[in-house]
């Protein structure tokens, strides 16, 4: 029974999706972002091949400046900075994607239920969202890590939980807009159950702004992960991470002033590429709105 009501409205979204993909590909900023991010992902995947040295080997002289063998110098334990930077991309990208997935995975259903059912469900869900929004992202992550303990999976959860409110709010507003539209009423009229209508009819029609938010959240998560690693509570130390490298650079400011430059450039580049993709998506699907973007970005500030 559910196939019929769900089948009817999916024709239009499919065509719209194609058109949106074309608009995305035509936007220069989006293509710059997509190519840049793809390069970063390839670099992270091929890290053991691309990196000139083993990032964990403490062979060389410590705190060297840039030179022929060590392009960007060595850290306080004589490890090659370039190699650690390349390997550090793995943690950053993994946590960013994971945290955005956690945020969307919890936030989207929450917003969908709140927007579609309204009344009590809406009131309860939105108060929880208000509360989550009231705790600064990094503080929330610190507290969650205190509860769960360190480790990459917990890091993803900690940052992802902080991203729930934006997803929930966005999905709720988009759901409110389509809730009374004809195709939703038609699906219900044809006997689709409430969960079915939400998942198969409403959700595909609110995906645009959610995709934009996903990318914005990932860029926020990159910065929060780096911040937590900088504080020593992110990626556990022997593994290279950009934030952890910046912490080392902070400790050896006077001995090696150039150290702090490069991991930060990686961070900024990743955020830049994600932001470009987010913009391109926003233009392509017409979702999100500048306010949503500003909210997401504002929270990753410090």
């Amino acid at each position, binding site marked *: 029974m559910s196939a019929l009501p769900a089948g009817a409205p999916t024709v239009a979204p499919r065509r719209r999706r194609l058109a949106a993909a074309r608009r995305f590909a035509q936007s220069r900023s989006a293509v710059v972002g997509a190519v840049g991010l793809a390069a970063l992902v390839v670099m992270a995947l091929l890290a053991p091949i691309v990196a000139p040295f083993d990032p964990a080997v403490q062979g060389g002289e410590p705190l060297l400046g840039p030179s022929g063998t060590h392009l960007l110098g060595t850290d306080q334990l004589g490890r090659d900075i370039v190699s650690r930077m390349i390997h550090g991309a793995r943690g950053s990208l993994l946590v960013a994607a994971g945290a955005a997935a956690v945020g969307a995975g919890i936030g989207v259903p929450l917003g969908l239920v709140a927007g579609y059912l309204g009344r009590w469900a809406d009131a309860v869900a939105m*108060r*929880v969202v*208000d*509360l989550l*929004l*009231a*705790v*600064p*992202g*990094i*503080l929330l992550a*610190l*507290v969650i890590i*205190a*509860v769960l*303990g360190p480790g990459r999976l917990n890091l993803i959860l900690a940052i992802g939980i902080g991203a729930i409110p934006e997803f929930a709010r966005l999905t709720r507003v988009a759901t409110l807009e389509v809730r009374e539209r004809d195709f939703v009423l038609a699906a219900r009229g044809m006997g689709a159950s409430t969960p079915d209508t939400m998942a198969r009819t409403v959700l595909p029609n609110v995906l645009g702004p959610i995709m934009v938010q996903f990318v914005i959240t990932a860029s926020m998560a990159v*910065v929060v992960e*780096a*911040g937590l690693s*900088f*504080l020593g509570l992110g990626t556990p130390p022997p593994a290279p991470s950009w934030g952890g490298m*910046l912490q080392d*650079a*902070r400790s050896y*400011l*006077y001995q090696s*002033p150039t150290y*702090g*430059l490069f*991991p*930060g450039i990686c*961070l*900024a*580049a990743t*955020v*830049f590429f994600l*932001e470009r993709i987010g913009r391109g998506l926003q233009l392509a699907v017409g979702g999100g709105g*500048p*306010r949503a973007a*500003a*909210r997401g*970005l*504002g*929270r*990753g*500030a*410090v």
Partner: protein
Amino acid sequence: MYGYLVRRLLQFAVVLLLGSVAVWAFVLLLPGDPATVLIGQDATAAELAAARARMGLDRPFLAQYGVWLGHALTGDLGASYYSGQPVLTELMDRIPATVQLAGFTLVLTLLIAVPVGIVVALRPYSVVGRVLQGYLTVGLAVPAFWLGLLLIIVLAVQLRWLPASSDFVPLWQDPGAALTSTILPAAAIAVHTSSVTARFLANSLGEVMGKDYIRTARAKGVPERDVIRRHAVRNAALPTVTIVGLQLGSFLGGTVVIEAVFNYPGLGRLLYTAIGERDYALVQGGVLFVVATFLLLNLLVDVAYGALDPRIRLT
């Protein structure tokens, strides 16, 4: 208006109550027993039981929460496990530093964001407009704590113009020293937040410039300067107030990493240290304080919205 106010206050109370439950329950979720943290690992079972009884940990959860909430409402947030000082005193010690940094950051953010936002919206293709758009792109991408590190490397380590770590000097004691010690962390944050704010202002200004009342103002002969200043910017500024309010909220509790970079003794550092020392009473009190402040700020922004714009009827 009053109906709206009452409903918002009620909402505020509900969320704050929810927050108090979450903050209180957080200690239950933690691995380990708070009493063990207090008296040490090698205490005997009897000592542990005595400590638990003294801390009220042997009573039912609901009773524990009730007692805790009752105390919290009268301003008694318990004592820090670590220093033994009342939590409220510990928080009050750090609040001036945090408020000063937040204030500096807010002023800098607005000083940059308003002119940049206006120029980018009105002259996007001029040379200055393009340069400023470049600033917005870079400002959005550069993480504040890395910029802070760069500022330290250049201004403190290389040029030795400013101190590498920022002790808190109250503005009312020595304005000059307060400025030099707070300016670097404030600037590091403000580059990012001003980019967010300016882009937002530019977007809403761009929308407003296409409105009929702008055309009307021009048609009746209002000079372009006044059209922008009195008709456009005033209308575009309103939604920007929301963003700035949210940002101010995050300055008051979320500048943990920046404070670590600059060794700045604010609220964020206090809470970070407290988490590391497993000083849960302090963490509870601090997070509750941050949440309450943020909610209150949000409430004020929403109410101010209605007061600033007579078109908005809050019902």
